[in-house]
């Protein structure tokens, strides 16, 4: 009965993994609890009961949003450089100067300017604090009415962007080197790990959609595929150097989709433009059809951007919400349900990471292919 041994072994391993997870969540709430009690003793009278309640929506949105400092663990933060292009020029300082204030209560004076940080966005500070002690004017939705300098800070997402670019460069330059060293031989190591995926992009994404002209678009398709995939995976790592929600950030997806749009517009042939501005329909239908086709040019990349952003963000929110349930119910026992669920969602997210990279790439190839298609 060999099989039973294997089964036992797997069960043991699973048990260990679960035990570790549970142990982790047993310990963390205890820490939180201690912190809470100390806070409570200090500010028990000052703060109303409602303020202390765990806000799941805020918690999740805070974690998927960009940040000016990188939270490592506990009270340890990595201060990232803040670079602002203000009315009077470039101002650079360390984000730790805000001392983790995110409620615009602490004013930083640099380069003759005064700045505050509210919900990870930097504003020009008001002259005086409002009734909540915030140096910003806020509307009824707690959104600031103050002006913002152009923010070119190296945020957590920008940092992750650079890390992922370096990782991708390291991986693929090593792969390329493998082809040089082992010229004409079968692939080995990292090379043999990446080659099937490169071939997958070439044979299943580029060739069927782009036809014989596929080679021109291979650099973009391969880069965008691996960029999205690597960053999706990095985003699933809950601690350094992962943890940022880069591909779930609309700025990133909008840039990627814009490049696809530019490729479509630059490479679109006369049939593509004819299809938009002079389709083969009676002339009076042009009034309806031409505007629809023009909108169609832009809806394709917008859909690309929104799809990637929404899928990755949704995955992160799901995991955060499941973990957050523990704090909502303020009970360790919820972790017995929410941790396996989060683990399950995490496993699905691994699949989604690949699938979304695949979908973005294949749709880009499809849209470009439609624009360069020859009609006979």
């Amino acid at each position: 009965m060999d099989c039973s041994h294997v089964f036992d072994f797997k069960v043991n391993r699973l048990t260990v993994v679960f035990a570790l997870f549970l142990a982790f969540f047993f310990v963390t709430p205890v820490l939180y609890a201690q912190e809470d009690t100390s806070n409570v003793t200090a500010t028990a009278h000052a703060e109303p009961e409602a303020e202390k309640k765990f806000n799941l929506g805020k918690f999740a949105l805070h974690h998927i949003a960009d940040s000016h400092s990188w939270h490592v663990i506990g009270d340890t933060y990595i201060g990232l450089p803040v670079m602002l292009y203000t009315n009077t020029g470039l101002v650079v300082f360390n984000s730790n100067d805000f001392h983790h204030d995110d409620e615009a209560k602490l004013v930083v004076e640099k380069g003759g300017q005064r700045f505050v940080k509210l919900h990870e966005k930097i504003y020009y500070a008001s002259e005086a604090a409002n009734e909540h002690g915030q140096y910003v004017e806020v509307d009824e939705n707690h959104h600031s009415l103050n002006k913002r300098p152009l923010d070119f800070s190296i945020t957590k997402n920008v940092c992750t962007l650079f890390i992922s670019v370096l990782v991708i460069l390291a991986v693929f330059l090593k792969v390329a080197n493998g082809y040089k060293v082992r010229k004409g031989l079968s692939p080995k190591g990292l090379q043999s790990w990446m080659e099937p995926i490169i071939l997958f992009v070439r044979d299943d994404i580029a060739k069927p959609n782009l036809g014989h002209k596929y080679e021109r678009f291979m650099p973009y398709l391969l880069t965008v595929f691996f960029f999205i995939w690597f960053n999706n995976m990095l985003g699933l790592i809950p601690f350094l150097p992962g943890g940022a929600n880069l591909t779930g950030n609309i700025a990133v997806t909008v840039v990627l989709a814009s490049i696809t749009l530019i490729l479509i517009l630059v490479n679109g042939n006369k049939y593509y433009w004819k299809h938009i501005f002079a389709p083969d329909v009676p002339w009076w239908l042009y009034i309806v059809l031409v505007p629809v086709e023009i909108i169609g040019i832009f809806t394709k990349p917008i859909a690309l951007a929104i799809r990637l952003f929404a899928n990755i963000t949704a995955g992160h929110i799901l995991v955060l919400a499941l973990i957050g349930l523990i704090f909502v119910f303020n009970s360790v026992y919820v972790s017995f349900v929410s941790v396996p669920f989060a683990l399950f969602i995490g496993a699905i997210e691994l699949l989604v990471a690949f699938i979304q990279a695949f979908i973005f790439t294949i749709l880009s190839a499809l849209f470009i292919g439609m624009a360069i298609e020859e009609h006979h």
Partner: protein
Amino acid sequence: MELLVPEIGLVVFQTIAFLLLMFILAKFAWKPVLAAIKEREQTIDEALNKAELAKQEMVRLAAQNEESMKEARAERDLILKEAKNLKDTIVNEARVQAQTEGAKLIEKAKIEIENQKKAALAELKNQVSSLSLDIAERVLRSQLADQAKQQDLVAALLKDVELN
């Protein structure tokens, strides 16, 4: 809604970083990698084609071998048959010759025997005639010693003459 508003900083950094990544990878990774993969695929295709050709050549050669083997076998059979025929004719000829030779010899022997027989008979006749003449002489001598007897004899001889 805040999530749906792109931040200018990240847009700029993303554009720069991504384009830089794409150009570096295109030049130093994708180009050599795709070229190497293509080259390897062509090599494999060529090798497969060559193997296929070699296989066909093998089949052709085997068929050729088989053919020549068959031919050789047929030729051998033919040669053997011819040899056998030749042998048969030689043997037959020899037999016939031997027979005729023997017949001739026998004929010769017969003639010789006949001749010998004739010679022997002739000699015997001579001997018998001379012997009978001798006997006859002696009888005549004894007979003719007496007159009477001579008369009788003459009578008897005459009688025989008449009978003949």
